[in-house]
């Protein structure tokens, strides 16, 4: 499985490349008042406003440092493997802000030694622990990063905007 290697705090995680639309540089985000602390803000991505989750804050505590390699990974929540060229309103999307986003790697979730990671109620998005290069990486299920109800609240404007033309 081709996956994007990312860093949060002192640990490494991977995101399945099939769900990824594009990796974009970290830009200043529009803050959302009274939102959960892990929500870094809203990103304008090709005409679509999408929520961005700060993975460092969600998993490690401190916000991601402002580095060149701290990047936002734009992912599709619903359909996997769609080309970015197929339009900005192709579906529900989410941005994942993490550190050290520089490599695409091959990982095998079913390799010997892979186990289901310890799950907690706070972070349901963490998946299997997979051995990779002298250590373990953990799969991040992007679609579980934000509860559906919260996503709907955040993107209600999008839905209204996309319904108006029809």
């Amino acid at each position, binding site marked *: 499985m081709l996956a*994007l290697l990312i860093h949060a705090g002192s640990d490494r995680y991977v995101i399945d490349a099939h769900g990824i639309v*594009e990796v974009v540089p970290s830009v200043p985000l529009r803050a959302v008042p009274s939102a959960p602390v892990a929500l870094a803000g809203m990103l304008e991505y090709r005409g679509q406003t999408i929520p961005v989750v700060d993975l460092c804050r969600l998993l490690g505590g401190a916000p991601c440092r402002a580095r*060149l390699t701290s990047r936002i990974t734009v992912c599709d929540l619903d359909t996997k493997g769609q080309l970015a060229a197929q339009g900005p309103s192709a579906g529900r999307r989410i941005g994942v802000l993490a550190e050290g986003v520089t490599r695409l790697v091959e990982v095998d979730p079913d390799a010997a030694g892979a186990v289901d990671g310890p799950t907690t109620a706070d972070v349901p998005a963490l998946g299997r622990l997979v051995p990779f290069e002298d250590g373990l990486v953990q799969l991040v299920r992007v679609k579980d990063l934000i509860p559906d109800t919260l996503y709907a609240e955040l993107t209600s404007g999008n839905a209204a905007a996309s319904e108006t033309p029809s």
Partner: protein
Amino acid sequence: MTFKKRFVLIGALFVVGYAAMLLISWGIVEEVRIGGATYEQVVTDKDVIADVLPPPRFMIEPYLLCYEIATTDNAMDRGPMIMELKASFEMYDERGAYWAERIDDPKLRKLLLETSAGPVREFQEIVENEFLPALKGEGDWEPLDVITSRLEPLFSAHKAAVKQTVAVAEQRIRSNEQNARDAVERGRLLAIIVAGAFGVLLLGAGLWTGRAILARMRRINTRVRELAEADANLAARLDMERGDEVGELAGWFDRFLEKIAGLVKAVQRSSVQLTSTATQMAATSHEQEATINRFGASTTQIAAATKEISATGVELMQTMGEVGDVARESADVATAGRESLSGMQTSMGTLADSSASISTKLSVINEKAADIGVVVTTITKVADQTNLLSVNAAIEAEKAGEYGKGFLVVAREIRRLADQTAGATLDIEQTVGEMQSAVSAGVMEMDKFTEQVRSSVDRVRQVSGQLGRIIEQVEVLTTRFDLVREGMTSQSEGAMQINDAMGSLSDSVRQTTESLGEFTSVAESLKDAMQGLKGELSAFRLEE
């Protein structure tokens, strides 16, 4: 020659032949009819004989013979004459028997065989019993007296009866002739009527048959012409009853049309499937072409970025060369300074100037180092952008599936080169930072040194030590510079490798585009062919 013309020709031949027959029979009838030429000839010949011969049933000849016998002087001549008289009597009776057999009319029969025959029998008896004895001188009478007194009244009575008979016979002839003429007229009229009626019937039958055949042939003809020229409607049927050969032909034609319609329908279905397949092929190849074109654009971007890195690397190497020169120069100066410390008292002024000069040079180094910092930042940003580009290119390549496999490898290579660049820039950053802090410290020390030189010669030894440290730092700096140079060289090589990879990638992209173009044109021509086939097929209508 059409059937219609043939039918008309047959009718015309028949009419002409029939008219000729009619004319010939008319001529024959005209020739032999009562009162016609033949009849007149026959009657004239008979009339001639009747006029020349003495009539056997008229007693004029015996009567005259009797006179001749009575008046002749030569008794020798009487014998033959009497014989002739008796022969005429026999002839009379013979002819009487002949006519008794032939005449049916009672009136004529009575006149001929009774009224006129009565006086003749009496005449014959008188001749036998009185005239012939009188000739021999027997009896009371002279022969001439017998004739005048006895035979003459009988002859007169007979003559009157014969005239009556002739009148009756002539009347019968006239009525018979009239009857014959009437019969001929009736016969002619009947022949004309029968011929006319027969002709009309024949014409009607001919027209009826001809029209039936021609109408059916015309329907089949029209249908076939429609199929051949204009509206090729395969659904329409002739539906004729199969009474005759034409109907059978129409029936077989309909079955043939059904077969053709089935065939055309199958071909149309297949052509629709083929058209949709060709359209799908064309669409797919267009999509792939678009993807390849994006790859090409990305490749061009990467090549440009690589060139930029290469140019920056060269510039950086030049700068490093200058920095190295400066560092060596400052080392020389510092050495010279330390050497001249021994003669410090005298050369204090010179030392002060030299230290000022060092200060200036150090500030120049500082500026250069700052320049390097800017360049390194630029390289870092370029490396970062290259990394980001390679990550996105890898994601796109993954999504492109089979077509992106090769590009995925290239994207990984690009990322590794970008990482190497980033590592080298980190080293440079660190080195430059150290150099800057060292230079800053040197400047401060130099300032202090200058002050101390001015204030106290005792601190010359300290200054010498400081100078020694400066020299050491500069030496370190020089080795570091060499390291940086090596890094720059490897980066340049890496950039060249990227350039080569980009070149081969460009070639393969071009080849792929070409083959895709060929594929697209093949798909398009297939589509065109299918459109052509559809156009041909649309000439056949399968439904009403």
